[in-house]
Protein backbone atom coordinates (compact mmCIF):
# COMPACT_ATOMS: atom_id res chain seq x y z
CA UNK A 1 0.00 0.00 0.00
CA UNK A 2 1.47 3.36 -0.99
CA UNK A 3 1.23 6.52 1.09
CA UNK A 4 -1.57 7.94 -1.07
CA UNK A 5 -3.69 4.83 -0.65
CA UNK A 6 -3.02 4.86 3.06
CA UNK A 7 -4.05 8.52 3.26
CA UNK A 8 -7.31 7.86 1.42
CA UNK A 9 -8.18 4.84 3.51
CA UNK A 10 -7.28 6.58 6.79
CA UNK A 11 -9.34 9.60 5.79
CA UNK A 12 -12.26 7.45 4.67
CA UNK A 13 -12.29 5.61 7.98
CA UNK A 14 -12.54 8.80 10.03
CA UNK A 15 -14.59 10.89 7.59
CA UNK A 16 -17.66 9.26 6.10
CA UNK A 17 -18.02 12.14 3.64
CA UNK A 18 -15.01 11.05 1.57
CA UNK A 19 -15.64 9.57 -1.86
CA UNK A 20 -12.93 8.67 -4.38
CA UNK A 21 -13.88 8.81 -8.05
CA UNK A 22 -11.66 8.01 -11.00
CA UNK A 23 -11.76 7.83 -14.78
CA UNK A 24 -10.19 4.37 -14.77
CA UNK A 25 -6.82 5.49 -13.43
CA UNK A 26 -6.40 2.82 -10.79
CA UNK A 27 -2.65 2.31 -11.04
CA UNK A 28 -1.81 4.12 -7.82
CA UNK A 29 -5.04 3.14 -6.05
CA UNK A 30 -4.99 -0.64 -6.30
CA UNK A 31 -5.96 -1.31 -2.72
CA UNK A 32 -8.60 1.40 -2.47
CA UNK A 33 -11.59 -0.08 -4.37
CA UNK A 34 -12.15 -3.15 -2.16
CA UNK A 35 -11.58 -1.15 1.02
CA UNK A 36 -13.85 1.78 0.16
CA UNK A 37 -16.70 -0.24 -1.32
CA UNK A 38 -19.37 2.01 -2.82
CA UNK A 39 -17.37 5.09 -1.84
CA UNK A 40 -14.96 4.25 -4.65
CA UNK A 41 -16.49 5.02 -8.05
CA UNK A 42 -14.89 4.24 -11.39
CA UNK A 43 -16.77 5.84 -14.28
CA UNK A 44 -14.49 4.48 -16.97
CA UNK A 45 -12.77 6.77 -19.43
CA UNK A 46 -15.25 9.60 -18.96
CA UNK A 47 -13.64 12.63 -17.34
CA UNK A 48 -16.54 15.02 -17.93
CA UNK A 49 -19.02 12.65 -16.32
CA UNK A 50 -16.60 12.07 -13.46
CA UNK A 51 -16.38 15.78 -12.69
CA UNK A 52 -20.10 16.41 -13.04
CA UNK A 53 -20.76 13.56 -10.61
CA UNK A 54 -18.09 14.86 -8.25
CA UNK A 55 -19.76 18.28 -8.21
CA UNK A 56 -23.16 16.72 -7.59
CA UNK A 57 -21.86 14.66 -4.69
CA UNK A 58 -19.88 17.55 -3.21
CA UNK A 59 -22.87 19.90 -3.01
CA UNK A 60 -24.68 17.09 -1.18
CA UNK A 61 -22.04 17.20 1.56
CA UNK A 62 -19.38 14.84 0.22
CA UNK A 63 -15.67 15.50 0.03
CA UNK A 64 -14.57 14.10 -3.29
CA UNK A 65 -11.14 13.10 -4.54
CA UNK A 66 -11.29 13.00 -8.35
CA UNK A 67 -8.27 11.13 -9.62
CA UNK A 68 -7.34 11.03 -13.31
CA UNK A 69 -4.55 11.74 -15.76
CA UNK A 70 -3.70 15.41 -15.37
CA UNK A 71 -4.00 16.28 -19.05
CA UNK A 72 -7.50 14.85 -19.47
CA UNK A 73 -8.68 15.81 -16.02
CA UNK A 74 -7.84 19.48 -16.48
CA UNK A 75 -8.53 19.88 -20.17
CA UNK A 76 -11.11 17.35 -21.38
CA UNK A 77 -13.19 18.14 -18.32
CA UNK A 78 -12.22 21.79 -18.01
CA UNK A 79 -15.68 23.29 -18.46
CA UNK A 80 -17.14 20.78 -16.01
CA UNK A 81 -14.50 21.78 -13.47
CA UNK A 82 -15.34 25.42 -14.09
CA UNK A 83 -19.13 25.10 -13.93
CA UNK A 84 -19.76 22.16 -11.62
CA UNK A 85 -16.87 22.50 -9.16
CA UNK A 86 -15.32 25.99 -9.16
CA UNK A 87 -18.53 28.00 -9.63
CA UNK A 88 -20.23 26.20 -6.76
CA UNK A 89 -17.04 26.18 -4.68
CA UNK A 90 -17.43 22.46 -4.06
CA UNK A 91 -14.88 20.49 -2.00
CA UNK A 92 -13.54 18.41 -4.87
CA UNK A 93 -9.81 17.64 -4.82
CA UNK A 94 -8.64 17.10 -8.38
CA UNK A 95 -5.57 14.88 -8.32
CA UNK A 96 -3.75 14.97 -11.63
CA UNK A 97 -1.56 11.98 -12.46
CA UNK A 98 1.70 12.34 -14.41
CA UNK A 99 1.65 16.13 -14.66
CA UNK A 100 4.43 18.12 -16.30
CA UNK A 101 7.45 16.17 -17.49
CA UNK A 102 6.21 13.04 -15.74
CA UNK A 103 4.22 12.01 -18.80
CA UNK A 104 7.72 11.17 -20.12
CA UNK A 105 7.24 8.88 -23.15
CA UNK A 106 3.53 9.50 -23.78
CA UNK A 107 3.92 12.38 -26.18
CA UNK A 108 2.36 15.81 -26.37
CA UNK A 109 -1.29 14.72 -26.04
CA UNK A 110 -0.57 13.56 -22.51
CA UNK A 111 1.52 16.55 -21.46
CA UNK A 112 -0.23 18.56 -18.76
CA UNK A 113 1.99 21.61 -18.94
CA UNK A 114 -0.69 24.28 -18.99
CA UNK A 115 -2.54 22.77 -16.01
CA UNK A 116 -1.33 25.31 -13.46
CA UNK A 117 -2.27 28.14 -15.79
CA UNK A 118 -5.84 27.04 -16.44
CA UNK A 119 -6.57 25.83 -12.91
CA UNK A 120 -5.28 28.95 -11.20
CA UNK A 121 -7.41 31.03 -13.55
CA UNK A 122 -10.56 29.65 -11.92
CA UNK A 123 -12.00 31.54 -8.95
CA UNK A 124 -12.23 29.38 -5.78
CA UNK A 125 -9.72 26.84 -7.14
CA UNK A 126 -6.42 26.32 -5.32
CA UNK A 127 -3.32 24.78 -6.89
CA UNK A 128 -0.92 22.59 -4.94
CA UNK A 129 2.28 21.20 -6.46
CA UNK A 130 4.16 19.05 -3.93
CA UNK A 131 7.85 18.24 -4.28
CA UNK A 132 7.74 14.68 -2.95
CA UNK A 133 5.35 12.03 -1.73
CA UNK A 134 5.57 13.04 1.89
CA UNK A 135 4.59 16.61 1.10
CA UNK A 136 1.81 15.40 -1.20
CA UNK A 137 0.29 13.40 1.63
CA UNK A 138 0.80 16.10 4.29
CA UNK A 139 -0.76 18.70 2.00
CA UNK A 140 -3.65 16.50 0.96
CA UNK A 141 -4.63 16.08 4.61
CA UNK A 142 -5.05 19.84 4.87
CA UNK A 143 -6.83 20.18 1.52
CA UNK A 144 -9.34 17.44 2.30
CA UNK A 145 -10.53 19.52 5.24
CA UNK A 146 -10.41 22.87 3.43
CA UNK A 147 -13.98 22.87 2.12
CA UNK A 148 -12.80 24.25 -1.24
CA UNK A 149 -11.75 22.83 -4.60
CA UNK A 150 -8.09 22.17 -5.30
CA UNK A 151 -6.03 20.97 -8.20
CA UNK A 152 -3.06 18.88 -7.09
CA UNK A 153 -0.15 17.76 -9.20
CA UNK A 154 0.26 14.19 -7.99
CA UNK A 155 3.81 13.21 -7.05
CA UNK A 156 5.00 10.00 -5.44
CA UNK A 157 8.77 10.54 -5.62
CA UNK A 158 10.83 9.62 -2.55
CA UNK A 159 11.11 11.95 0.40
CA UNK A 160 13.61 14.72 -0.40
CA UNK A 161 14.69 14.63 3.25
CA UNK A 162 14.26 18.33 3.63
CA UNK A 163 13.36 19.88 6.92
CA UNK A 164 9.80 20.75 6.03
CA UNK A 165 7.62 23.15 7.86
CA UNK A 166 4.03 21.95 8.22
CA UNK A 167 2.04 22.46 5.03
CA UNK A 168 0.10 25.68 4.90
CA UNK A 169 -1.62 26.97 1.74
CA UNK A 170 0.03 30.14 0.49
CA UNK A 171 3.29 29.56 2.36
CA UNK A 172 6.45 28.80 0.43
CA UNK A 173 9.43 27.06 2.03
CA UNK A 174 13.11 27.86 1.64
CA UNK A 175 15.14 24.74 0.96
CA UNK A 176 18.61 26.19 0.36
CA UNK A 177 20.04 29.47 1.65
CA UNK A 178 18.59 31.62 4.41
CA UNK A 179 15.28 33.21 3.56
CA UNK A 180 16.04 36.83 4.48
CA UNK A 181 19.72 37.31 3.74
CA UNK A 182 21.17 38.55 0.53
CA UNK A 183 21.56 35.95 -2.19
CA UNK A 184 23.08 36.23 -5.63
CA UNK A 185 20.28 34.16 -7.04
CA UNK A 186 16.91 32.98 -5.77
CA UNK A 187 15.36 30.03 -7.58
CA UNK A 188 11.59 29.89 -7.26
CA UNK A 189 10.19 26.51 -8.21
CA UNK A 190 7.55 23.91 -7.42
CA UNK A 191 6.81 20.24 -7.75
CA UNK A 192 8.92 17.61 -9.38
CA UNK A 193 11.72 19.96 -10.49
CA UNK A 194 12.40 21.11 -6.92
CA UNK A 195 14.91 18.29 -6.60
CA UNK A 196 16.74 19.40 -9.76
CA UNK A 197 16.84 22.96 -8.43
CA UNK A 198 18.40 21.84 -5.14
CA UNK A 199 21.09 19.99 -7.04
CA UNK A 200 21.66 22.99 -9.29
CA UNK A 201 21.97 25.28 -6.26
CA UNK A 202 24.48 22.95 -4.66
CA UNK A 203 26.53 22.91 -7.87
CA UNK A 204 26.44 26.72 -8.07
CA UNK A 205 27.50 26.99 -4.45
CA UNK A 206 30.65 25.16 -5.47
CA UNK A 207 31.20 28.09 -7.84
CA UNK A 208 30.94 30.46 -4.86
CA UNK A 209 27.49 31.67 -5.83
CA UNK A 210 25.05 32.14 -3.04
CA UNK A 211 21.85 30.52 -4.32
CA UNK A 212 18.60 30.26 -2.46
CA UNK A 213 15.93 27.71 -3.44
CA UNK A 214 12.32 28.44 -2.62
CA UNK A 215 9.64 25.82 -3.21
CA UNK A 216 6.29 27.58 -3.65
CA UNK A 217 4.17 24.57 -2.61
CA UNK A 218 0.89 26.24 -3.62
CA UNK A 219 0.75 28.34 -6.77
CA UNK A 220 -2.64 29.58 -5.65
CA UNK A 221 -2.86 31.05 -3.13
CA UNK A 222 0.66 32.15 -3.87
CA UNK A 223 3.16 33.37 -1.32
CA UNK A 224 3.58 36.89 -2.71
CA UNK A 225 5.90 37.83 0.13
CA UNK A 226 8.28 35.03 -0.83
CA UNK A 227 8.42 36.42 -4.37
CA UNK A 228 8.86 40.02 -3.23
CA UNK A 229 11.47 39.00 -0.70
CA UNK A 230 13.36 37.17 -3.45
CA UNK A 231 13.17 40.27 -5.63
CA UNK A 232 14.41 42.53 -2.83
CA UNK A 233 17.30 40.39 -1.69
CA UNK A 234 18.64 38.82 -4.89
CA UNK A 235 20.50 40.02 -7.95
CA UNK A 236 18.67 37.48 -10.10
CA UNK A 237 15.36 35.67 -9.62
CA UNK A 238 14.95 32.42 -11.52
CA UNK A 239 11.69 30.57 -12.06
CA UNK A 240 11.95 26.86 -12.80
CA UNK A 241 8.90 24.82 -13.80
CA UNK A 242 7.86 21.92 -15.98
CA UNK A 243 5.07 24.04 -17.41
CA UNK A 244 4.61 26.37 -20.34
CA UNK A 245 6.28 29.71 -19.78
CA UNK A 246 2.82 31.21 -20.19
CA UNK A 247 0.56 31.19 -17.19
CA UNK A 248 2.66 29.36 -14.65
CA UNK A 249 5.15 30.54 -12.05
CA UNK A 250 6.98 32.80 -14.50
CA UNK A 251 3.71 34.64 -15.13
CA UNK A 252 2.85 34.64 -11.44
CA UNK A 253 6.17 36.30 -10.62
CA UNK A 254 5.62 38.88 -13.36
CA UNK A 255 2.11 39.62 -12.07
CA UNK A 256 3.34 39.91 -8.50
CA UNK A 257 6.25 42.22 -9.32
CA UNK A 258 3.97 44.40 -11.42
CA UNK A 259 1.29 44.52 -8.74
CA UNK A 260 3.77 45.62 -6.07
CA UNK A 261 5.82 47.87 -8.34
CA UNK A 262 9.04 45.93 -7.93
CA UNK A 263 11.64 45.12 -10.51
CA UNK A 264 14.41 42.55 -10.66
CA UNK A 265 16.14 40.61 -13.43
CA UNK A 266 14.22 37.37 -13.95
CA UNK A 267 15.31 34.22 -15.77
CA UNK A 268 12.31 32.07 -16.69
CA UNK A 269 13.16 28.40 -17.11
CA UNK A 270 10.26 26.31 -18.34
CA UNK A 271 8.76 24.91 -21.50
CA UNK A 272 8.27 27.21 -24.50
CA UNK A 273 6.38 24.43 -26.31
CA UNK A 274 5.58 20.72 -25.97
CA UNK A 275 8.63 18.74 -24.95
CA UNK A 276 10.28 15.87 -26.77
CA UNK A 277 8.87 12.63 -25.30
CA UNK A 278 11.16 9.90 -24.07
CA UNK A 279 12.69 8.44 -20.92
CA UNK A 280 12.42 10.92 -18.09
CA UNK A 281 16.13 11.58 -17.62
CA UNK A 282 16.49 12.23 -21.33
CA UNK A 283 13.38 14.40 -21.37
CA UNK A 284 14.87 16.56 -18.65
CA UNK A 285 18.14 16.84 -20.50
CA UNK A 286 16.55 17.60 -23.88
CA UNK A 287 14.21 20.17 -22.36
CA UNK A 288 17.14 21.71 -20.46
CA UNK A 289 15.36 21.17 -17.17
CA UNK A 290 17.84 18.92 -15.36
CA UNK A 291 20.13 20.28 -12.66
CA UNK A 292 23.09 20.64 -15.02
CA UNK A 293 21.09 22.68 -17.51
CA UNK A 294 19.49 24.78 -14.77
CA UNK A 295 22.90 25.53 -13.24
CA UNK A 296 24.38 26.30 -16.66
CA UNK A 297 21.59 28.70 -17.58
CA UNK A 298 21.78 30.47 -14.25
CA UNK A 299 25.55 30.81 -14.48
CA UNK A 300 25.23 32.21 -17.99
CA UNK A 301 22.52 34.70 -17.08
CA UNK A 302 24.18 35.74 -13.86
CA UNK A 303 27.38 36.48 -15.79
CA UNK A 304 25.32 38.73 -18.09
CA UNK A 305 23.99 40.61 -15.10
CA UNK A 306 27.40 41.01 -13.59
CA UNK A 307 28.43 42.55 -16.90
CA UNK A 308 25.42 44.91 -16.70
CA UNK A 309 23.66 43.44 -19.66
CA UNK A 310 20.09 43.04 -18.63
CA UNK A 311 18.66 41.95 -21.97
CA UNK A 312 17.16 38.47 -21.63
CA UNK A 313 17.74 35.98 -24.42
CA UNK A 314 14.63 35.51 -26.53
CA UNK A 315 12.90 32.18 -25.86
CA UNK A 316 13.32 29.60 -28.57
CA UNK A 317 10.21 27.98 -29.97
CA UNK A 318 10.89 24.65 -31.58
CA UNK A 319 8.97 23.28 -34.50
CA UNK A 320 5.90 21.15 -33.78
CA UNK A 321 6.56 17.60 -32.60
CA UNK A 322 3.63 16.11 -34.43
Amino acid at each position, binding site marked *: MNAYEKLLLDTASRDERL*VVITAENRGHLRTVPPMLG*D*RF*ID*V*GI*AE*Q*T*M*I*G*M*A*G*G*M*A*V*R*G*RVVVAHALAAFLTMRAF*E*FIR*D*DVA*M*VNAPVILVGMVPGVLSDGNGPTHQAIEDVSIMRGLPNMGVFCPCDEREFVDGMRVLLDSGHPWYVRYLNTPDLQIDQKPFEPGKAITLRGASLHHANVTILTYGFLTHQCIEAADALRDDDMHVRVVHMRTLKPVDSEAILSAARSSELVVTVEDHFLTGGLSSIVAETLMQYGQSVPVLSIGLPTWFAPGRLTEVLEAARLNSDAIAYRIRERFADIVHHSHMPPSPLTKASHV
Partner: protein
Amino acid sequence: MTRFEVEELETLALRVREHIVRMSTNGGCFIGASLSCTDILVYLYKRFLNIRPETVNSEDRDILLLSKGHDVPALYGVLAETGFISRERLQHHLSVDDDIYWHPNRKVSGVEFHSGSLGHLLSVGMGMALDARMKGLATRVVVILGDGELNEGSIWEASLVASALSIDNLIAVVDRNHFQANLRTEELVPLEPLADKFRAFGWNATHVNGHDMRSLDECFTGLHLNTGSPTVVIADTRRGKGLPSIEEQADRWFCNFNVEETQALLDELNGHASATITSERLVVR
Protein backbone atom coordinates in the same frame (compact mmCIF):
# COMPACT_ATOMS: atom_id res chain seq x y z
CA MET B 1 -56.48 11.60 -10.45
CA THR B 2 -59.94 13.04 -10.07
CA ARG B 3 -61.24 15.57 -12.54
CA PHE B 4 -60.96 18.20 -9.83
CA GLU B 5 -57.30 17.35 -9.24
CA VAL B 6 -56.56 17.54 -12.97
CA GLU B 7 -58.25 20.92 -13.20
CA GLU B 8 -56.32 22.14 -10.19
CA LEU B 9 -53.04 21.24 -11.90
CA GLU B 10 -54.14 22.81 -15.17
CA THR B 11 -55.06 26.00 -13.38
CA LEU B 12 -51.68 26.05 -11.69
CA ALA B 13 -49.99 25.51 -15.07
CA LEU B 14 -51.91 28.49 -16.42
CA ARG B 15 -50.65 30.65 -13.54
CA VAL B 16 -47.08 29.49 -14.28
CA ARG B 17 -47.47 30.29 -17.98
CA GLU B 18 -48.64 33.76 -17.03
CA HIS B 19 -45.45 34.22 -15.04
CA ILE B 20 -43.42 33.04 -18.03
CA VAL B 21 -45.14 35.53 -20.33
CA ARG B 22 -44.51 38.32 -17.84
CA MET B 23 -40.82 37.37 -17.83
CA SER B 24 -40.71 37.59 -21.64
CA THR B 25 -40.72 41.37 -21.66
CA ASN B 26 -38.25 44.02 -20.51
CA GLY B 27 -35.27 41.89 -21.50
CA GLY B 28 -37.12 38.76 -22.46
CA CYS B 29 -36.58 35.07 -21.83
CA PHE B 30 -36.46 31.71 -23.55
CA ILE B 31 -40.22 31.52 -23.69
CA GLY B 32 -40.65 28.61 -26.10
CA ALA B 33 -38.80 25.99 -24.07
CA SER B 34 -40.25 27.30 -20.82
CA LEU B 35 -43.79 26.82 -22.06
CA SER B 36 -43.06 23.33 -23.37
CA CYS B 37 -41.94 21.97 -19.99
CA THR B 38 -44.46 23.85 -17.82
CA ASP B 39 -46.98 21.02 -17.43
CA ILE B 40 -44.23 18.53 -16.65
CA LEU B 41 -42.82 20.71 -13.87
CA VAL B 42 -46.25 21.48 -12.44
CA TYR B 43 -47.11 17.79 -12.34
CA LEU B 44 -43.77 16.77 -10.82
CA TYR B 45 -43.79 19.40 -8.08
CA LYS B 46 -47.43 18.90 -7.14
CA ARG B 47 -47.83 15.14 -7.51
CA PHE B 48 -44.54 13.31 -7.77
CA LEU B 49 -41.56 14.92 -6.06
CA ASN B 50 -41.11 14.63 -2.33
CA ILE B 51 -40.14 18.24 -1.87
CA ARG B 52 -41.94 21.18 -0.31
CA PRO B 53 -40.76 24.60 0.86
CA GLU B 54 -40.50 23.30 4.41
CA THR B 55 -38.38 20.29 3.34
CA VAL B 56 -36.16 22.18 0.90
CA ASN B 57 -33.07 21.32 2.97
CA SER B 58 -34.07 17.82 4.09
CA GLU B 59 -31.45 15.30 3.15
CA ASP B 60 -33.98 12.77 1.86
CA ARG B 61 -35.84 15.22 -0.38
CA ASP B 62 -36.28 14.43 -4.04
CA ILE B 63 -34.24 16.52 -6.43
CA LEU B 64 -35.16 18.15 -9.72
CA LEU B 65 -32.47 19.59 -11.97
CA LEU B 66 -32.94 21.67 -15.09
CA SER B 67 -30.12 20.62 -17.34
CA LYS B 68 -31.20 22.70 -20.32
CA GLY B 69 -31.41 25.66 -17.98
CA HIS B 70 -33.01 28.22 -20.25
CA ASP B 71 -36.44 26.85 -19.32
CA VAL B 72 -35.96 28.27 -15.84
CA PRO B 73 -38.87 30.76 -16.07
CA ALA B 74 -41.11 27.68 -15.85
CA LEU B 75 -39.31 26.49 -12.73
CA TYR B 76 -39.39 29.93 -11.13
CA GLY B 77 -43.10 30.13 -11.91
CA VAL B 78 -43.64 26.76 -10.20
CA LEU B 79 -41.46 27.70 -7.23
CA ALA B 80 -43.41 30.94 -6.84
CA GLU B 81 -46.79 29.20 -7.07
CA THR B 82 -45.80 26.47 -4.61
CA GLY B 83 -44.32 28.76 -1.96
CA PHE B 84 -40.56 28.24 -2.38
CA ILE B 85 -40.15 31.87 -3.37
CA SER B 86 -42.54 34.81 -3.40
CA ARG B 87 -44.49 35.69 -6.51
CA GLU B 88 -43.30 39.27 -6.16
CA ARG B 89 -39.73 38.09 -6.56
CA LEU B 90 -40.38 37.19 -10.19
CA GLN B 91 -40.60 40.91 -10.87
CA HIS B 92 -36.85 40.95 -10.19
CA HIS B 93 -36.24 38.93 -13.35
CA LEU B 94 -33.00 40.21 -14.91
CA SER B 95 -32.31 42.60 -12.06
CA VAL B 96 -28.62 42.49 -11.16
CA ASP B 97 -29.71 42.78 -7.54
CA ASP B 98 -31.37 39.35 -7.57
CA ASP B 99 -30.36 35.92 -8.83
CA ILE B 100 -33.23 35.39 -11.26
CA TYR B 101 -32.05 35.51 -14.84
CA TRP B 102 -32.09 33.36 -17.99
CA HIS B 103 -30.53 30.30 -16.36
CA PRO B 104 -30.96 28.71 -12.90
CA ASN B 105 -28.99 29.93 -9.89
CA ARG B 106 -28.85 27.76 -6.79
CA LYS B 107 -29.00 30.76 -4.50
CA VAL B 108 -32.74 30.74 -5.29
CA SER B 109 -34.57 28.50 -2.82
CA GLY B 110 -35.64 25.28 -4.53
CA VAL B 111 -32.93 25.38 -7.20
CA GLU B 112 -30.61 22.44 -6.56
CA PHE B 113 -27.83 23.26 -9.03
CA HIS B 114 -27.07 25.97 -11.52
CA SER B 115 -26.91 25.35 -15.25
CA GLY B 116 -26.65 27.16 -18.53
CA SER B 117 -24.00 25.24 -20.40
CA LEU B 118 -25.78 22.26 -21.92
CA GLY B 119 -24.92 18.67 -21.11
CA HIS B 120 -23.85 19.05 -17.48
CA LEU B 121 -26.63 18.14 -15.10
CA LEU B 122 -27.18 14.54 -16.08
CA SER B 123 -23.78 13.74 -14.58
CA VAL B 124 -24.35 16.12 -11.66
CA GLY B 125 -27.67 14.39 -11.00
CA MET B 126 -25.96 11.01 -11.19
CA GLY B 127 -23.58 12.11 -8.45
CA MET B 128 -26.51 13.25 -6.31
CA ALA B 129 -28.40 10.01 -6.92
CA LEU B 130 -25.36 7.91 -6.01
CA ASP B 131 -24.80 10.00 -2.90
CA ALA B 132 -28.38 9.28 -1.83
CA ARG B 133 -27.95 5.58 -2.55
CA MET B 134 -24.77 5.47 -0.46
CA LYS B 135 -26.69 7.08 2.39
CA GLY B 136 -29.57 4.65 2.04
CA LEU B 137 -32.02 7.46 1.25
CA ALA B 138 -35.16 7.12 -0.86
CA THR B 139 -34.21 10.23 -2.84
CA ARG B 140 -35.12 10.26 -6.50
CA VAL B 141 -33.30 12.57 -8.87
CA VAL B 142 -35.16 13.95 -11.89
CA VAL B 143 -33.12 15.67 -14.60
CA ILE B 144 -34.97 17.69 -17.24
CA LEU B 145 -33.10 17.51 -20.53
CA GLY B 146 -33.83 19.45 -23.69
CA ASP B 147 -34.02 17.44 -26.88
CA GLY B 148 -31.61 19.85 -28.56
CA GLU B 149 -29.34 19.30 -25.59
CA LEU B 150 -29.03 15.68 -26.66
CA ASN B 151 -26.58 16.88 -29.33
CA GLU B 152 -24.03 17.15 -26.54
CA GLY B 153 -21.67 14.18 -26.28
CA SER B 154 -21.49 14.53 -22.53
CA ILE B 155 -25.14 13.41 -22.28
CA TRP B 156 -24.37 10.15 -24.01
CA GLU B 157 -21.15 9.65 -22.07
CA ALA B 158 -23.11 10.13 -18.85
CA SER B 159 -25.87 7.83 -20.13
CA LEU B 160 -23.38 5.03 -20.61
CA VAL B 161 -21.99 5.55 -17.12
CA ALA B 162 -25.43 5.83 -15.45
CA SER B 163 -26.29 2.45 -16.85
CA ALA B 164 -22.89 0.97 -15.95
CA LEU B 165 -23.31 2.16 -12.36
CA SER B 166 -26.96 1.00 -12.23
CA ILE B 167 -28.17 4.40 -11.04
CA ASP B 168 -31.80 3.38 -10.74
CA ASN B 169 -33.06 6.27 -8.62
CA LEU B 170 -32.39 8.57 -11.58
CA ILE B 171 -35.07 9.75 -14.00
CA ALA B 172 -34.18 11.78 -17.06
CA VAL B 173 -37.11 13.60 -18.62
CA VAL B 174 -36.57 14.73 -22.18
CA ASP B 175 -38.69 17.77 -23.02
CA ARG B 176 -39.20 16.54 -26.56
CA ASN B 177 -40.51 19.71 -28.14
CA HIS B 178 -38.83 18.82 -31.44
CA PHE B 179 -36.96 22.11 -31.67
CA GLN B 180 -33.50 23.24 -30.89
CA ALA B 181 -32.54 26.87 -30.93
CA ASN B 182 -33.34 27.74 -34.51
CA LEU B 183 -34.42 24.57 -36.26
CA ARG B 184 -36.44 21.40 -35.80
CA THR B 185 -34.23 18.75 -34.24
CA GLU B 186 -34.89 16.30 -37.06
CA GLU B 187 -33.76 18.88 -39.63
CA LEU B 188 -30.41 19.47 -37.95
CA VAL B 189 -29.22 16.46 -35.94
CA PRO B 190 -31.95 13.82 -36.04
CA LEU B 191 -32.61 12.09 -32.72
CA GLU B 192 -35.10 9.40 -33.65
CA PRO B 193 -35.49 6.64 -32.74
CA LEU B 194 -34.78 8.32 -29.43
CA ALA B 195 -36.23 5.80 -26.98
CA ASP B 196 -34.34 3.02 -28.75
CA LYS B 197 -31.11 4.95 -28.34
CA PHE B 198 -31.57 5.12 -24.58
CA ARG B 199 -32.66 1.48 -24.44
CA ALA B 200 -29.52 0.50 -26.34
CA PHE B 201 -27.59 2.30 -23.60
CA GLY B 202 -29.28 0.18 -20.95
CA TRP B 203 -32.03 2.57 -19.84
CA ASN B 204 -35.72 2.00 -19.23
CA ALA B 205 -37.42 4.29 -21.74
CA THR B 206 -41.03 5.37 -21.96
CA HIS B 207 -43.08 8.02 -23.72
CA VAL B 208 -45.65 10.41 -22.31
CA ASN B 209 -47.81 13.27 -23.54
CA GLY B 210 -46.02 16.08 -21.72
CA HIS B 211 -49.08 18.34 -21.70
CA ASP B 212 -51.67 15.93 -20.34
CA MET B 213 -51.86 15.65 -16.57
CA ARG B 214 -53.51 12.23 -16.58
CA SER B 215 -50.90 10.85 -18.97
CA LEU B 216 -48.13 12.31 -16.85
CA ASP B 217 -49.68 10.76 -13.76
CA GLU B 218 -50.04 7.33 -15.33
CA CYS B 219 -46.48 7.51 -16.60
CA PHE B 220 -44.74 8.63 -13.42
CA THR B 221 -46.74 6.50 -11.02
CA GLY B 222 -46.05 3.51 -13.24
CA LEU B 223 -42.27 3.91 -13.46
CA HIS B 224 -40.19 0.93 -12.40
CA LEU B 225 -37.52 2.61 -10.32
CA ASN B 226 -34.86 0.86 -8.23
CA THR B 227 -34.71 -2.10 -10.56
CA GLY B 228 -31.09 -1.72 -11.62
CA SER B 229 -31.42 0.65 -14.58
CA PRO B 230 -31.82 4.40 -15.00
CA THR B 231 -35.10 5.60 -16.47
CA VAL B 232 -35.83 8.09 -19.21
CA VAL B 233 -39.24 9.62 -19.87
CA ILE B 234 -39.55 11.13 -23.32
CA ALA B 235 -42.23 13.77 -22.95
CA ASP B 236 -43.83 14.74 -26.23
CA THR B 237 -44.39 18.49 -26.03
CA ARG B 238 -44.90 21.58 -28.14
CA ARG B 239 -42.57 24.54 -27.99
CA GLY B 240 -44.51 27.62 -26.97
CA LYS B 241 -47.42 25.48 -25.71
CA GLY B 242 -50.39 27.56 -24.63
CA LEU B 243 -49.80 30.44 -27.00
CA PRO B 244 -51.00 29.49 -30.51
CA SER B 245 -49.54 32.70 -31.91
CA ILE B 246 -45.99 31.57 -31.17
CA GLU B 247 -46.41 27.79 -30.80
CA GLU B 248 -44.12 25.60 -32.91
CA GLN B 249 -42.52 28.53 -34.67
CA ALA B 250 -38.83 28.16 -35.27
CA ASP B 251 -38.14 31.83 -34.68
CA ARG B 252 -39.89 31.99 -31.30
CA TRP B 253 -37.19 30.55 -29.10
CA PHE B 254 -35.98 33.60 -27.23
CA CYS B 255 -38.44 36.48 -27.20
CA ASN B 256 -38.44 39.97 -25.80
CA PHE B 257 -41.98 41.29 -26.21
CA ASN B 258 -43.18 44.82 -25.70
CA VAL B 259 -45.74 45.61 -23.01
CA GLU B 260 -48.74 45.55 -25.36
CA GLU B 261 -47.73 42.21 -26.83
CA THR B 262 -47.25 40.77 -23.38
CA GLN B 263 -50.77 41.82 -22.42
CA ALA B 264 -52.16 40.35 -25.63
CA LEU B 265 -50.34 37.08 -24.91
CA LEU B 266 -51.73 36.99 -21.37
CA ASP B 267 -55.19 37.42 -22.89
CA GLU B 268 -54.42 34.68 -25.39
CA LEU B 269 -53.38 32.32 -22.58
CA ASN B 270 -56.76 32.89 -21.02
CA GLY B 271 -58.65 31.92 -24.14
CA HIS B 272 -59.05 35.22 -25.95
CA ALA B 273 -58.11 35.85 -29.56
CA SER B 274 -54.59 35.12 -30.70
CA ALA B 275 -52.17 37.92 -30.14
CA THR B 276 -50.62 39.67 -33.09
CA ILE B 277 -46.89 39.76 -32.60
CA THR B 278 -44.90 42.19 -34.66
CA SER B 279 -41.84 42.74 -32.48
CA GLU B 280 -38.40 41.35 -33.16
CA ARG B 281 -38.20 37.77 -34.32
CA LEU B 282 -35.48 35.20 -34.19
CA VAL B 283 -33.27 36.69 -31.53
CA VAL B 284 -30.46 34.22 -31.71
CA ARG B 285 -28.68 33.83 -28.41
